[in-house]
């Protein structure tokens, strides 16, 4: 079995989370933003599984199953919203959703 120290494993999950965070902050294409959220959710689940395997408990993996459920529901609703956005605005740019902005102030 793997004998990498716990801090390296958690550091790996943190790096994955930060990659997702940077992607979410930088990209303006809304499909890429949803993909970055997927990366972040996955790394959070990875931390749960690491902790569960460290203490030899099944609870971490149970939590991963719940995260998987939430991710599936979130992605289906998010993609439906993306379809509607493309239907209305004919673009996937998140900056195009500025209907509430004051038109006089630029």
């Amino acid at each position, binding site marked *: 079995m793997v004998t990498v120290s716990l801090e390296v494993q958690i*550091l790996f999950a943190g790096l994955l989370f930060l990659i997702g965070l940077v992607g979410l902050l930088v990209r303006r294409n809304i499909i890429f933003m949803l993909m970055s959220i997927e990366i972040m959710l996955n790394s959070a689940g990875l931390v749960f599984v690491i902790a569960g*395997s460290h203490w*030899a408990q099944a609870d971490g*993996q*149970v939590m991963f199953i719940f995260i998987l459920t939430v991710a*599936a529901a979130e992605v289906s609703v998010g993609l439906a919203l993306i379809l509607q956005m493309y239907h209305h605005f004919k673009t996937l740019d998140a900056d195009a959703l500025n209907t509430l902005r004051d038109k006089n102030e630029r």
Partner: protein
Amino acid sequence: MNTIFYIAGAIALLSSILAITNRNAIHALLYLILSLLSISVIFYILGAPFIAALEVIVYAGAIMVLFIFVVMMLNIGLEEELENKWLKPRMWILPSIIAAILLANLIYALRVLEHQTVTPQIIQPKQIGISLFTTYLLAVELSAILLLAGIIGAYHIGKQKKKIIHRFLKK
């Protein structure tokens, strides 16, 4: 086994970076699938074979296929110029600095762990099932309701509503 962990981790990090920096949506999704598969390898060698299988089946198999369907439905690639105006290398600096600060914070916080190495034991799916349907029974029922709400919400939002215009308003 440690070598496999490092190789799979490096592949996961590299393909995640390639996924978020790619301009082509389909290529980015394929890199993301590669990242999920290598994370599944990590789950397997961490002693969670059930979760590894679930990651491949649900994440790489179902969720990513949903993404690919939407990308193919929308025929993306026509409006790439709009983001190209934004996506200069200069734009990556400030978020990367913020992420680096967070990473330094994490490294500082992880010093207290002091190289704990415990060889993990394999947790069988039976244990997970027993835990799911005894301790976490309420949460399982709640997630069933969440999935139902997700189905209904996705159907309702994604429905193409027919635009009804009065005949006087038609041009």
